[in-house]
């Protein structure tokens, strides 16, 4: 493997692992905030026990996720110093920098929320702090997504001058916060990140519900699964709408990526939607075609009738065409997830308890992991779809990479370390979650419950 290939692989592996912790953390703190709100209203002891248990899991997720986030941040400098130099000379570094203060907001409010419970007598303290932690967590995600959006649609400096001379001029630091793809990408990334995390947590609770014989625990887990299903149903609608908007942005600002994702060999009109299949000698083989659907969606969302094709661009700039398959897996996977949640919704509609249906719980477990897989595949589609560029139409990956071989051995150690760390973290999640009997966690602090 070349050093560029190694840099690519190491970063992809690290961030692919990191986003599992990120989606868990964001979903956990949102669920905790919802539980704090419900507990404040109803004083339901199930909600109190869930808050206590999930808070501990969140601290672990945050602690490991923070370290992992710093690994990603430093790896960007270490593996792609050319890219980070460009980032640092243009306005988009401001988003990284602002993210640090969002991170402080999250960290310090979390420390107060977890380790200083009870020192403020205001009855809304816990709810407010949990919301501030959630806000800080989401804001961190927003700023990082801004950087990714800038990589897809760079702005804020004189690009033609940079391409001809390699010098960064005409810098407008604040413009980089709002590229043409920024708001659409933020909407899609946040909704899908929350969705993947919430569904994964749902899988855990479904498994626990099926396993436990303790009636208190059954009640607690049922309560959580209902909240999770409500959040998931709302979230998948938002994820679908924002995903559709993302395709419109691609069509307008990254036509090559769009052509590769939809596997359009040549530009034209009236295209079918092609599910799966591959390109061979300019022809698409083995695909399932839905006549006119691609053209209809493009016209409906953007008004564009002539769609881009790969032949408009030099073959050396094409991304790997596997992204057509990953894109289809993501969309079809999203539809299956939507179908599952639609069935869950029908249970609500007909006033049936979906949690008591054993098959629904099996499906909840399956779709929890499936949602994470679809989420990862979505990121693969986005990132591989931008190749060979690291900054679209500005800098290629090979121009940004670090060719020092000194990082090879430590790099393999990082990979080995993550292979142990992620399963160990999930093992600890479960162990910490189960560390107290349900009845103990359900007692108010004054009666001897858990006090941090």
């Amino acid at each position, binding site marked *: 493997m070349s050093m560029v290939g190694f840099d690519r692989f190491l970063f992809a592996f690290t961030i692919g692992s990191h986003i599992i912790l990120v989606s868990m953390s964001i979903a956990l703190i949102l669920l905790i905030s919802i539980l704090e709100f419900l507990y404040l209203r109803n004083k339901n002891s199930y909600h109190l026990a869930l808050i206590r248990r999930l808070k501990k899991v969140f601290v672990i997720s945050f602690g490991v996720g923070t370290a992992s986030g710093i690994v990603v941040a430093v790896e960007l400098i*270490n593996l792609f110093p050319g890219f980070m130099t460009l980032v*640092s000379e243009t306005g988009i570094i401001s988003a990284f920098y602002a993210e640090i203060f969002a991170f402080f907001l999250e960290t310090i409010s979390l420390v107060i929320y977890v380790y200083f419970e009870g020192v403020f007598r205001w009855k809304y303290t816990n709810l407010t702090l949990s919301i501030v932690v959630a806000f800080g967590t989401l804001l961190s995600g927003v700023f990082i997504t801004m950087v990714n959006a800038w990589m897809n649609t760079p702005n804020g400096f004189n690009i033609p001058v940079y391409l001809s001379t390699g010098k960064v001029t005409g*810098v407008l630091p604040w413009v980089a916060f709002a590229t043409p793809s920024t708001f659409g990408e933020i909407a899609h990334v946040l909704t899908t990140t929350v969705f993947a995390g919430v569904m994964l947590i749902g899988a855990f609770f479904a498994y626990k519900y099926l396993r436990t014989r303790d009636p208190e625990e059954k009640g607690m887990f049922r309560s959580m699964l209902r909240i999770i299903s409500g959040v998931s149903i709302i979230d998948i609608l938002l994820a679908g709408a924002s995903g559709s908007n993302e395709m419109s942005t691609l069509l307008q600002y990254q036509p090559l990526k769009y052509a590769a994702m939809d596997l359009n060999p040549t530009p034209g009109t009236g295209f079918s939607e092609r599910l799966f299949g591959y390109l061979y000698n300019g022809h698409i083989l083995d695909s399932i075609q839905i006549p006119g659907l691609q053209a209809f969606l493009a016209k409906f969302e953007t008004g564009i009738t002539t769609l881009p094709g790969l032949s408009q661009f030099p073959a050396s700039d094409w991304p790997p065409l596997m992204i057509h398959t990953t894109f289809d897996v993501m969309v079809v996977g999203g539809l299956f997830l939507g179908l599952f949640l639609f069935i869950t919704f029908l249970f609500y509609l007909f006033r049936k308890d979906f949690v008591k249906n054993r098959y629904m719980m099996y499906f909840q477990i399956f779709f929890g992991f499936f949602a994470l897989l679809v989420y990862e595949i979505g990121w693969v589609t986005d990132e591989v779809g931008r190749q060979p560029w690291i900054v679209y139409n500005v800098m290629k990956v090979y121009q940004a990479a670090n060719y020092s071989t000194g990082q090879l051995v430590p790099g393999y150690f990082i990979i080995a370390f993550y292979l142990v760390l992620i399963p160990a973290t999930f093992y600890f999640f479960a162990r910490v979650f189960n560390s107290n009997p349900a009845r103990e966690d359900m007692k108010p602090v004054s009666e001897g419950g858990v006090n941090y």
Partner: protein
Amino acid sequence: MLIINILFGINFAVFAVFAVLIITEMMGSVLMLIAWEAVRKKVLDYVVPVWEVTGTFGAFWVVASDFAFPKILIPLASIFSAAIAIFLILFVARNSTIVFAEFIKKKGWLDEKKLYTGYSISTLLLGLVVLVIITGIIGGNGIDLSRLTFSVSAWAGNAASWLFIVGALVIAVGLAPVFYDLAPLKKLVVPFTVVGLVVSVISLDMFKHGSLPFLVAVPIILALLVPVLYYIPNTVKLVTNKVFFIAWASADIFSLEFMVYPTAFGGNINVNSLISTGPMASAYVAITVVGLVILAVLIALYSIAVYRRSAMMEKAASTP
């Protein structure tokens, strides 16, 4: 008086706070490895809520450096690629062991003590890696700037590198009883601090090739004030106060800025030539000001929480 660039000043101030936070954790780590039962309460009362803030300051310094010194990123990534990768592994190990230790209940071979030992070892090694990188940045030891490489043997062959690390560690051991208010170890404070300072000054002088400026008196006096205040009964409470100590030690490290400004890497690199200018510099200052206001509010809130909890504990202790 040396006038420093504001971007450099902000960056060095952030580094100073990060360095102090990691050093206080290293002090705690040494104590936990040597006398787990005797020190665990005092050390963990501080370390457990603070380790997350230390990590955030680390990230703050890394990103602030990206922003302030974009031109040095490619050389640094090449020179320190292996050291940075080792740092990352240790950082994840440190975070994961302490967070697992915090919530573990004994089951099988793994327990709280083993995990805190893992945390202590990874924190100490992490600190050593940071010190190695700092010796490179100050004196250019082991660094070939033309080929952008770092040679461990060349670094180890330079006595200034070793003396700097030994000096820093001895000072840390000397000040640990003050920071964690461990009266039985009081007799270690003066000898260790003085010896550590002497060794450190020798190493700094070697880095500056025998032309150490008089400004070095400032960090020396600041460091010596701590044992003095610790020995005066009326000031013990002040000097063992964590917020005071961290602020004081940050000012002390900040006063060492002349070691890397205006030139770094053994005088071979002019720092001003690397610093962001124009609209990027304005953006850096603007975001920093807004961010520091938010940070000040959060730290104030945190201080109120610490104060209230202490008051509650004192009240509970005094209630028969």
